[in-house]
């Protein structure tokens, strides 16, 4: 096997890749990064004409391990229901790219990276970043991989915002956009929940203004941030069905502040396990990027004008019980895309599982994405 042609063993392609791109990498804030490291994975092979590339964008706490086991948790990839053999995004047919976002903590430059200028971790000296900066980092990765135009860019939640922003920032490089459970901007309520999370991290004495040691992170604060956010990913209906008022391993009320209710125990577990795989400062920076997101801001609030230069097709999906990025947000996008004359499809799917529905088994979502992608192939 060692003698197999070099093309198929191109070190740029495959699982768990890292690349270090020379800067300066300019940011929306006006600052720049001297160097840009990106952690990413690719699946499948780029067609000779380069026309089968699909970029998958991850959500706030996701990463590049979209369809392979996670190196820290050992769990399957976070979107194996949509990405994989026989799935709508299929390595047999597509060349699939997924990269850790700028500001992340799984191999892409972020606040836990070493600042080449000082030799120390950036921590809070890392510049504030935006969704556009994340998209531009992905574009730099595509340049490195030799991918010109994307057949599609696909994402849910924050990944959907990146997908939408791709059509705005790089209209000539994207033919189709799939945005699932997403929005064109962060609402006051979205920002409010993020601020609760950030304040929980900053209130943890272990945070030390961001200069915590890697082995002594503000885990309690990050866990609370995750717990608050996790509630926004579910629905009242889903929580009631899953937990109701049932007690955890006890017959009656204990008159204590232990996790007596199952829902408390569940949230504490979610919070704690999150701290094993995520960096608190990354959480601050990425939530900030989300809060700054407003596609219409550069166009006097006229969302349709943001898409004026785009020739892409769009597919949007929302879920009935998603109150984080509700259907009304998707409809706002549909109106704007219609006004811009774009080819847009939109479907609100029935689900009791809240925002998280996009990560769960959703046959109708797969049917929509599959049909949409095949039509644009």
């Amino acid at each position: 096997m060692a003698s197999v042609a070099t093309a198929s063993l191109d070190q740029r392609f495959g699982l768990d890749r890292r690349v270090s791109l020379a800067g300066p990498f300019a940011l929306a804030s006006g600052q720049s990064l001297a160097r840009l490291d990106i952690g990413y994975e690719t699946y499948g092979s780029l067609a000779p004409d380069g026309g089968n590339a699909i970029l998958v964008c991850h959500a706030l706490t996701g990463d590049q391990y979209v369809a392979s086991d996670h190196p820290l948790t050992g769990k399957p990839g976070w979107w194996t229901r949509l990405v994989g053999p026989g799935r709508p995004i299929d390595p047999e047919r597509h060349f699939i790219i997924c990269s850790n976002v700028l500001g992340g903590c799984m191999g892409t430059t972020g606040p836990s990276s070493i600042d080449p200028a000082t030799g120390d971790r950036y921590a809070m000296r890392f510049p504030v970043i935006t969704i556009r900066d994340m998209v531009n980092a992905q574009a730099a990765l595509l340049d490195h991989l030799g991918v010109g135009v994307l057949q599609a860019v696909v994402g849910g939640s924050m990944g959907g915002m990146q997908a939408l922003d791709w059509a705005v920032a790089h209209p000539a490089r994207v033919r189709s956009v799939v945005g699932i459970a997403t929005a064109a901007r962060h609402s006051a309520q979205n920002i409010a929940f993020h601020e609760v999370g950030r304040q929980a991290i900053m209130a943890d004495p272990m945070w030390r203004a961001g200069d915590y040691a890697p082995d002594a992170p503000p885990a309690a604060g990050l866990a609370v941030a995750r717990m608050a956010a996790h509630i926004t990913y579910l629905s009242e209906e889903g929580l009631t069905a899953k937990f109701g008022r049932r007690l955890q391993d006890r017959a009656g009320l204990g008159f204590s502040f232990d996790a007596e209710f199952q829902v408390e125990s569940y949230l504490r577990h979610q919070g704690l396990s999150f701290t094993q795989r995520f960096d608190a400062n990354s959480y601050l920076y990425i939530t900030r990027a989300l809060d700054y997101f407003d596609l219409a801001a550069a166009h006097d609030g006229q969302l349709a004008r943001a898409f004026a230069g785009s020739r892409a097709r769009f597919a949007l999906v929302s879920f009935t019980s998603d109150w984080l990025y509700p259907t009304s947000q998707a409809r706002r996008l549909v109106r704007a895309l219609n006004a811009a004359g774009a080819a847009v499809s939109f479907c609100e799917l029935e689900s009791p599982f809240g925002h998280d529905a996009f990560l769960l088994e959703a046959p109708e979502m797969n049917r929509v994405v599959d049909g949409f992608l095949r039509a644009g192939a």
Partner: protein
Amino acid sequence: MSGSGLRPDLAAIAAAVPNGARVLDIGCGDGALLAHLRDTKGVDARGLDVSAANVASAVARGLSVVQGDADADLADYPADAFDMAILSDTLQAMQRPARVLGELVRIGRRGVVSFPNFGHWRVRRALLLGGRMPVTPSLPVSWHETANIHLCTIDDFRALAADLGLGVESATFLSDGARRGAALANLLADQAVFVLARGR
């Protein structure tokens, strides 16, 4: 039936659509008409339907279809966005048919409307002789289950179009799926297809 396998009223609508037109099908169902128009006439096909399952089916056919309600969501489309806006077998289920017709010829340079004729002799017979609300091939659902809330006759439709200042460019009449002439259409046609244009 036409060779396309389309419903007869859809085939009649398709015949009115020029090659390469920009088309919006309002109440497009699973996209059968749009897919036919795309495949045979190369139209730029867009759709709107209220049912998520229908939209999923239409998108799975590669069509650009938006889930929405014609009574509420047509206002979101810019004027003159389409060459033709189609409303097939849907007008009678609208809350405000007159407003929807107005939207049709605002969004499209022409509007195409098909509807079941409530003046057809079978309907009249059911009421006159049977004393019951009609259940016919073009009105197959009983009164308490039908989505049809604003049924009309061909003459009613002509009168409304005139009231709204809409010009009738052409009209096609169907009886049991076959085309028939305009003579006595209000009595003998069970379906009608009108091509409307903004009034002059």
